């Protein structure tokens, strides 16, 4: 009886270990998939105004007013490096470096600026060529802002 119990325990532990190894050997996928250069395609509110059927693009001025606490509103291109460094840049040469981290199985993207401030974005979707980020604004009636980026390199 005891031998059977020990064999069962060893079998269950072995299965769990193999399963765990398999799962965790693939769990870094979001960290791999995000590496590369991404270009902002759109900034839209998650909720429309009553009279709008198509989601309206948030213009430059509005971006500055709703996201002035975030560095990302100033840049169009995001380059995620493998060493957890991100370069935010524009064609005119304006650059900003920060540290990036993913949390909660890749559902949260955290940027840590050189001055220690942190910005947290929710990763709504991460596909081969498309990254959709959400962040909450103070404009509660309009809710969340959705940033869509396309991979360019």
């Amino acid at each position: 009886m005891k031998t059977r119990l020990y064999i069962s325990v060893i079998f269950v532990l072995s299965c769990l270990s193999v399963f765990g190894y398999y799962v965790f050997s693939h769990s870094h996928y979001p960290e791999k998939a995000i590496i590369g250069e991404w270009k902002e395609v759109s900034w839209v509110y998650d909720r429309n105004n009553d009279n709008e059927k198509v989601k309206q693009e948030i213009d430059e001025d509005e971006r500055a007013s709703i996201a002035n606490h975030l560095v990302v509103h100033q840049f169009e291109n995001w380059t995620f490096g493998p060493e957890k460094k991100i370069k935010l840049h524009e064609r005119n040469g304006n650059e900003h470096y920060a540290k990036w981290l993913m949390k909660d199985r890749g559902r949260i993207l955290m940027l840590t600026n050189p001055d220690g401030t942190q910005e947290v974005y929710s990763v709504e979707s991460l596909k081969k060529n498309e990254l959709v980020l959400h962040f909450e604004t103070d404009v509660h009636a309009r809710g969340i802002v959705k940033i869509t980026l396309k991979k360019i390199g």
Partner: protein
Amino acid sequence: MLRRYSNSRSFSDNLKLGVFTAVIAGMVNVASVILFYSFTSNLTGHFAVFAQEIADGKWFQMLVVFFWIILFFGGSFLSNILVINSNKRNAFLSHSIPMVLEILCFVGVGIYGQFFYQETLTETEILVSVLLFSMGLQNGLTASLSNFQVKTTHLTGLTTDLALHLSMLTKKEYRENQAVVEKTKLMASIMFSYVVGGVVSGLVIHYFQFQVFYLVSIAMAGVIVYDYVKSTLSTKKILKERVLMREQISRLASSALPARPNGIGQHKRQSVAESK
């Protein structure tokens, strides 16, 4: 607190166990939310995410959540196996093994987090797995020891039960029912302790970071030692009282029996031996 099992437990035993483990669960859950952005003391959210990942077709993400659920399940399973296979002689040892394993999990997470953690997703997911296993151990132990009276790692069911019990207390007949009153006190204490644990963890984690798991481990080790010493002392006391009682009974018996004439008893014993 740990030695007694099921119906032999008093309200005080369950209250102490509930309050202490709820503080631990609250501390661990808040610490894991701050450090890993993930809950580790409750599974309802993970089940919802599990279903969502299946619906979205994110199979590896789904497997990670499924593995977490299995580990919580495994922790509870292991705790109960140890409790139901214990006997009176090894009760304390069997009941404290899940807590010792929990301490090892916390110390492991603390050491890894303090010295090796690079904040990668894989590391985070493994550390969350370890914490979920430890919370499974704790929930299984408390539920098993207390005959399902005490569950401290999640508050959904407890909040519902507390609401039901409080509504029952609006009637006089239930207010006079000691079992209902005690259960209400127990649940309210667990809820309060969980929140206190969470607040303490939220306040100290910015200074201690991963070292908060050492604090939890030290508190747990302290409780095991305290419970061992207390139960050993009370066992010694009971044994001493039993010896004294036996002596008293034998003294009373010898003074109450009439004196026998010499040789009668001896003769009887001899005749019985001869007949055999």
